[in-house]
Each structure stands twice: as structure tokens, then as C-alpha cells.
């Protein structure tokens, strides 16, 4: 599949503003809650969660614990994939029981990734609640999963790819919409 055109959906400033707003909303709901934890879904969800963690600490002076989730082993499409993603460690440095989890990912699409993440979290324990924070909600859901904190909702079609670029990983900071020909 070759990318043909890409449209800039959010530039650096817009993206930073979006993350800022998300952090404020999360902090509003969970400040002073000792059971509040962040869990980022590999890979960019982790970067985002790390940023939120730093920002929350700067604002409230309390740093929420951060977990890293690799959902590869819980995917529902492994038996059809020929190219297997590399399995990386999942690290949850806290007991999941009774925690209030904010699950963080960059793009919400079909909802299958979040489904896998929930199954995996549940194998670790029984959280008090799980909320979902995503930067971009691109619609086209295949599962009944909705975000609690959204940076931006976009209308897209299946022939498009939403690419979130974060400076820690990609060097620059923007959101692109790509038309796939294939």
C-alpha cells in the first residue's frame, strides 16, 4: 500500500494544545485520588501517558504511577497475521486491584486494541474503574467502546490512515491523514 496524499490535520501547536486540554480534564477528575494510575498502550500510547504523567506531576505535585501495556498477545488477529509483531514486556508496577485506571492511546479506531487491553488488564486484577483517553477518535467502531477523554474527533474512511507523530519517537509533532492506495 503506497501513501499518496497526506493532509496535515493538526500542527504542532494544535497538538500540544489538545494534550494540554486532555491533561486538565483528567486532572480535574482524579486529583488527590490515591488509586489513580495511568496505563499507556504501546507504543505511542506510552509516550502520551508519560507526557500526561509529567504534566500532572507539574500541576498537582503528585506523580501518578505509570504502567506500560503490550497487547500483542491478546490480539484477536494473530492466527491470520503472517508478520508477527515483536512481543515486548508489559510492566505494571502496581497492583491492579481497586485502581482507577486511565488507559491512554494515540488513535481510537475499531476498538479492538482497547478490547485487548481491557482483557489483559483484567488478567492482572480487578480495577475499580477504567477510563479511556485518546488523542484522536477516528470513528468506524467495530466494538461498543467509547472514549472518556478525546483530543479530537475526526471523520475518516477505511482507505485512510491517521498518523500521530510525537517528537520523542518521530522527531516532529503533528497529526497527518494519509490516503492509502492499494
Amino acid at each position, binding site marked *: 500500500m503506497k501513501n499518496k496524499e497526506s493532509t496535515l490535520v493538526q500542527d504542532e501547536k494544535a497538538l500540544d494544545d489538545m494534550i494540554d486540554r486532555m491533561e486538565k480534564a483528567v486532572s480535574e477528575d482524579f486529583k488527590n485520588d490515591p488509586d489513580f494510575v495511568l496505563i499507556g498502550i504501546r507504543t505511542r500510547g506510552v509516550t502520551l501517558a508519560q507526557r500526561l504523567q509529567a504534566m500532572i506531576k507539574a500541576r498537582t505535585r503528585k506523580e501518578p504511577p505509570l504502567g506500560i501495556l503490550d497487547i500483542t*498477545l*491478546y490480539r484477536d488477529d494473530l*492466527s491470520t*497475521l*503472517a508478520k508477527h509483531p*515483536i512481543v515486548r*514486556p508489559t510492566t505494571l508496577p502496581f497492583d491492579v486491584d481497586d485502581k482507577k485506571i486511565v488507559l491512554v492511546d494515540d488513535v481510537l479506531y475499531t476498538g479492538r486494541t482497547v478490547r485487548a487491553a481491557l482483557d489483559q488488564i483484567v488478567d492482572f486484577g480487578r480495577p475499580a474503574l477504567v477510563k479511556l483517553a485518546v488523542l484522536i477518535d477516528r470513528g468506524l467502531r467495530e466494538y461498543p467502546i467509547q472514549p472518556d477523554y478525546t483530543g479530537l474527533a475526526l471523520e475518516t474512511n477505511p482507505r485512510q490512515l491517521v498518523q500521530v507523530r510525537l517528537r520523542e519517537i518521530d522527531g516532529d509533532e503533528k497529526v497527518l491523514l494519509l490516503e492509502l492506495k492499494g
Partner: protein
Amino acid sequence: MKFRHKHLLGLEDLTREEIELILENATGFKEIFTRSIKKVPTLRGKTVVNLFYENSTRTRTSFEIAAKRLSADVINFNVSTSSVQKGESLLDTARTIEALGADIIIMRHSCPGAHQLLARHINASFINAGDGPHEHPTQGLLDAFTIKEKLGGFEGLNVVILGDITHSRVARSNIWALTKLGANITIAGPSTLLPKPFEKLGVRISTDLKEAIQNADVINLLRIQLERQRKNLFPSIREYRLLYGLTQERLKWAKKNVLIMHPGPINRGVEISQEVADGKHSVITQQVTNGVAVRMAVLYLLSGGDEA
């Protein structure tokens, strides 16, 4: 990167990148052991069959745990050689297993190439758990993984494999994996147990223990089998121990932080002394743990489909 093999029959056929891919995945799988629920749903609904024509509790159990942690259904076919008419029953057994819907068959057999014979008749994926003296790929992989975990890498590392190389599948798989990964291999033991043609593989050959393990970063000890002694391949266990037994004293000839490895089971007091086996250089127990992680990685990579 795509793992493009349907079977894992040996390390000779794998590229360096493919071996590194397995090792990389193994790290991810090892983390699961630290969870309280040591299970992931990855192979749920898949049937994994352990078909062992040679006795082995440790390898079979290791594969069984690996498959079960991936939520697969495991069937153990323990075939004792006395009740089997060789050859004929192998194919009949194979057809039975196919009828059971096996997705992955883990097989150990005393004849090199036994898996190829079955793979011609059955559709499942095969993992070689040892075919005679030919290969034992998951052992080679877990040995490499252990070295990587402890020493960080392979380039320029001096690895010594000590013992009955001629009859050892562990030695062969080790040689393939470690030479591809960039290590320097020395094989050492009595001349009756060292295959001279291996020089063509770029491997150093030595019959002198002290000379062999000088500057060794890793010493992989092979079990000396008593049946070989009866075949006049060496005069006695006592002689073997005198010439090649690794004791605490002799360990000093190697590097300070040398790793001591052994595929098990150990002949305490023959190829390895009690103190060395239990000492601080020994990573033998870690090998066992790593074995499960590596086998999970292999099962994971073999369970793929055909879509790109």
C-alpha cells in the same frame, strides 16, 4: 520482520536475523512469568501435541508449560520404544495425531530427519525437540538467550563446548546459532568424540582442557553418556573426569566471569563437579527458565497465518 518458516527443525536453516527475532520475542515472554496469572490467550483453541519417542521429562515439561501459558490445549503422546515397531508405527501415529487436529507437533526422535518424514504426510507445524545427534534448536536458542541475558551480546565472545560433540545435538545447534551470531566457538573433548570435519565450520578444535578453556567467556558442558564408554570411545568415566572434568580449580583457567552452562541432566562429579554446578558461575537453573520463554516465543512465531 516475518518469520517465514512453517517448522522449526534446526538452526542451520535460520538466518542471523531470524534467530535474533526469536530472542527478542523471548524477552517479552519472560515477563509473563512474573505475573500472578501466568497465562495469555494467544494460542487459545490451538492444539499442541508432544510426540516424544525418546524419554525426556525436562524438555517435554518445558514445552508443555510454554504451550499452556499461551492457553493452548496440550496432548502428550509418550511412545516407548519397546512397544513400537519402528517406522511403521511412526506413520500410523502421525495419522492419528492429524485426525486429532494437531496444529503444532513437538517431536523428539532418535533418528535424524524423522520430522521431515512426518512433515511430508501431515499438515501441522513441527518443532524439533531433538532428532538423534542432529539438532535441538530450542536448546540452542535458549543457550543463546541465556548468554545474551548475562553477557549482553555475542560478537567476539569465546564459547567452549566441552564433551561428546560427535553424538550431541545440543553441540550442533549451539554451533549454528552462535557462529551466526558472531561468537568464537571451541569444541573440546577426547579425539574419539570430536568430529574433525567441523574445522570447516570455522570452529576451533582442542583435546586439551586447559588450552581449550583459556579465555573462555562461556563453557557449555555436555553430559557424558555411559553407553559411549561401553563402545570403546573412551576407556572409563574416571579417565574422562581426570582429563576433562570441570572442577572449581580448573575453572580458574577461564575468564573471571565465565558462564557455566549445561543442557542437563547433570552427571555430578563426572563432567562437572558439585561446587561448579551449584557455584556462582553456573547459570544452569536460568537456562531452564529461559527455556520456557524461548519455547513460548517459538510457538508464538509458528502460529501465524498466511496473510501479509
